[in-house]
C-alpha cells in the first residue's frame, strides 16, 4: 500500500470520532464537517513528511478545532489571521485532547452523530443519504450514483436533511440511560437500513451499492466497541456479517437473484461467517433475545448447514415463532411459512399464510411464495394467478425476472402435458 492509501485508511477510521467531537465543540454540522475536511487536507500535507502522529484522531480533532476557531474569529473581526503558526506546536495540546477522548464523552459523541442521521423527522431515504455523507464521508456524487439520482438532487436531499436536523435541535447534554437506549435502537435500525441498501440491490446496482453493506458492518463494529455488552448490537453485527458472507453468491452473472438453496456454499465468506457466529454465540449468553439476535440466529442456522438438505428447519421454525412473539408482523409470519412448508409440506404452509393475505395484498414476496406453494401442490392455474400478481408488485427487474422463470416452467409443463 502506498503511503497515501495508509493515510486514507487512518482518516476513514478516525472520521466518526473526529466529526462527532467537532460537532460537540461547535454544535453545527457544517462547521464540524468543514473543520474535519481542512484537518484532513493538512494531514495529507504533513503526515507523509513527519510520519503519522501518535494519535491520529486526536490530531485531527485538535487541528480541526483550531481551524474552525480561526474561521469563527476571522469572521468576527473581518480580517485575516495567520494560519499555520497557530497549530505548529501540537505536543501538549494533543495529549490534552487525547485525554479527554478517553473520557466517557466520546461514546456519547459518536452515538449523537449517528443518532442525528436517523432523527425521527427524517424519512428513511434521507437517513441513509445523511449517514453515508456525514459519518462515512462518501461524496454526494458517489451516493447519487448508487441511488441513480442526479448529483444536485442528492445534494439537495442532504441539505434538506441537515436543515431539518438543525431545526429539530438534538440536545447536546449527555443522554440518560433510557434515552441512550432509545438512541442506540434508532441508530441500529438506521445502520440496518444502510446495510440493506447495499444488500438488497440486484442487477447493475449491486456493485455500486456493495460498499454500503461494508460500511454498515464497519459502523456496527464501531458501535459494538462503544457498547460491548448490548446483545442486540451483537445481534445486528452478526446478522449483517452472516448475510454479507453470502453476497458473492446471491446474484448470478446476469445480476439475477439466486435462491439460498441454489447458492454455491463453497463461495460463502468463511471469515465473515466465523465472526458472525462468534457474535451470535456471545449475544445468546445474555438470554435477552431481540429481533436482530433472532434474525441472526436464523441466518446462523442457514450458514451452519453444509448442504441445503441439512438445514435445521425445526430450529428455524422455532426461531421465527419467537420472532413473531417479540416483533409480531405479517412479514415475519410469511418467512416462517417457508419453514412450515419444509417441515409439514406445502398444504400446511398454504393454510398458514392464508390469514396473511389481507395485510400483505401489496407484497411481492407473499404472492411469490403463494405461487410456489400452489405449484408444488400441482395447482398450476392458481399458481399462475399468484405469480402474475407477484410480477405486478415486483420492486426490481430481477425480482420480476425470477418469477418469470417459474411462469416459463409452468407454461412448458402445461404444453408437455397437453401434448402428451
Amino acid at each position, binding site marked *: 500500500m502506498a503511503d497515501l492509501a495508509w493515510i486514507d485508511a*487512518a482518516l476513514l477510521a478516525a472520521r466518526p470520532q473526529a466529526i462527532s467531537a467537532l460537532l460537540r465543540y461547535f454544535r453545527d454540522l457544517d462547521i464540524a464537517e468543514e473543520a474535519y475536511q481542512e484537518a484532513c487536507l493538512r494531514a495529507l500535507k504533513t503526515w507523509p513528511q513527519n510520519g503519522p502522529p501518535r494519535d491520529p484522531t486526536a490530531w485531527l480533532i485538535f487541528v480541526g478545532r483550531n481551524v474552525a476557531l480561526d474561521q469563527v474569529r476571522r469572521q468576527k473581526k473581518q480580517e485575516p489571521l495567520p494560519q499555520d503558526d497557530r497549530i505548529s506546536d501540537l505536543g501538549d495540546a494533543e495529549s490534552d485532547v487525547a485525554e479527554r477522548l478517553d473520557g466517557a464523552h466520546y461514546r456519547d459523541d459518536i452515538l449523537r452523530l449517528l443518532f442525528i442521521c436517523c432523527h425521527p423527522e427524517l424519512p428513511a431515504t434521507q437517513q441513509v443519504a445523511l449517514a453515508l455523507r456525514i459519518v462515512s464521508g462518501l461524496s454526494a456524487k458517489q451516493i447519487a450514483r448508487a441511488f441513480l439520482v442526479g448529483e444536485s438532487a442528492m445534494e439537495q436531499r442532504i441539505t434538506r436533511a441537515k436543515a431539518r436536523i438543525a431545526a429539530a435541535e438534538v440536545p447536546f447534554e449527555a443522554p440518560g440511560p433510557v434515552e441512550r437506549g432509545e438512541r442506540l435502537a434508532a441508530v441500529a435500525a438506521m445502520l440496518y437500513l444502510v446495510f440493506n441498501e447495499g444488500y438488497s440491490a440486484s442487477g447493475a446496482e449491486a456493485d455500486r451499492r456493495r460498499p454500503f453493506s461494508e460500511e454498515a458492518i*464497519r459502523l456496527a463494529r464501531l458501535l459494538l*466497541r462503544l457498547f460491548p455488552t448490548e446483545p442486540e448490537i451483537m445481534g445486528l453485527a452478526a446478522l449483517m456479517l452472516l448475510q454479507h458472507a453470502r453476497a458473492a453468491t446471491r446474484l448470478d452473472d446476469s445480476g439475477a437473484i439466486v435462491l439460498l438453496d441454489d447458492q454455491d456454499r463453497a463461495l460463502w465468506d468463511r471469515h465473515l461467517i466465523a465472526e458472525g457466529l462468534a457474535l451470535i454465540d456471545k449475544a445468546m449468553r445474555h438470554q435477552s433475545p431481540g429481533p436482530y439476535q433472532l434474525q441472526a440466529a436464523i441466518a446462523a442456522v442457514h450458514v451452519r448447514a453444509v448442504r441445503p438438505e441439512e438445514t435445521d428447519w425445526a430450529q428455524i421454525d422455532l426461531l421465527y415463532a419467537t420472532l413473531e412473539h417479540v416483533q409480531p408482523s405479517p412479514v415475519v409470519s410469511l418467512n416462517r411459512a417457508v419453514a412450515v412448508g419444509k417441515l409439514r409440506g406445502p398444504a400446511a404452509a398454504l393454510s398458514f399464510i392464508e390469514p396473511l393475505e389481507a395485510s400483505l395484498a401489496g407484497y411481492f414476496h407473499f404472492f411469490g411464495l403463494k405461487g410456489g406453494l400452489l405449484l408444488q401442490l400441482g395447482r398450476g392455474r392458481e399458481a399462475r394467478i399468484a405469480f402474475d400478481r407477484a410480477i405486478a408488485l415486483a420492486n426490481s427487474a430481477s425480482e420480476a425476472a425470477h418469477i418469470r422463470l417459474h411462469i416459463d416452467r409452468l407454461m412448458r409443463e402445461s404444453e408437455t402435458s397437453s401434448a402428451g
Partner: protein
Amino acid sequence: MHYAILCYHSEEVVTAWTKEQNEEVMGRLEKVRQRIAKEGKLGPVARLLPTTAATTLRKDRDAPLILDGPFAETKEQFLGFYIVDVADLDEALGIARELGEANPGGAFEVRPLAVYYPAGV
C-alpha cells in the same frame, strides 16, 4: 529459542481497509511467512477476529465473572501472533522487521516463550 511476535494495530484502521487493501497486506505477509516456514523456523500463526468478538473471563474472584469484549481497552489491539524458533533476539527482531515492512503501522511485541507445547503433543 522460541519467541512470540505479538501483533498490535488499531482495529479501527485495520477494519477500514478495503478488501483489496486487506488482501494486499495478507499477500505480502504470506510471502514472509512461507519463507520463514521453509527455513523451519515457524511455529503456529494466528490472526484473531476483531476484539468485538471477544469474551473475557475474570478469574480474580469467585465465581469468575464473564464480560463482553477484550481484556484490555487500548488504542491498539492485540490482533494476532507468530511463534518463531530462532537463534537469538536479533534474529527474532529481524523477522519482526520484515513482517513490519509487509504490514506497516501498529507494533510488534517480541516476547520469549517460557513453555511451548506444539499442537497435538
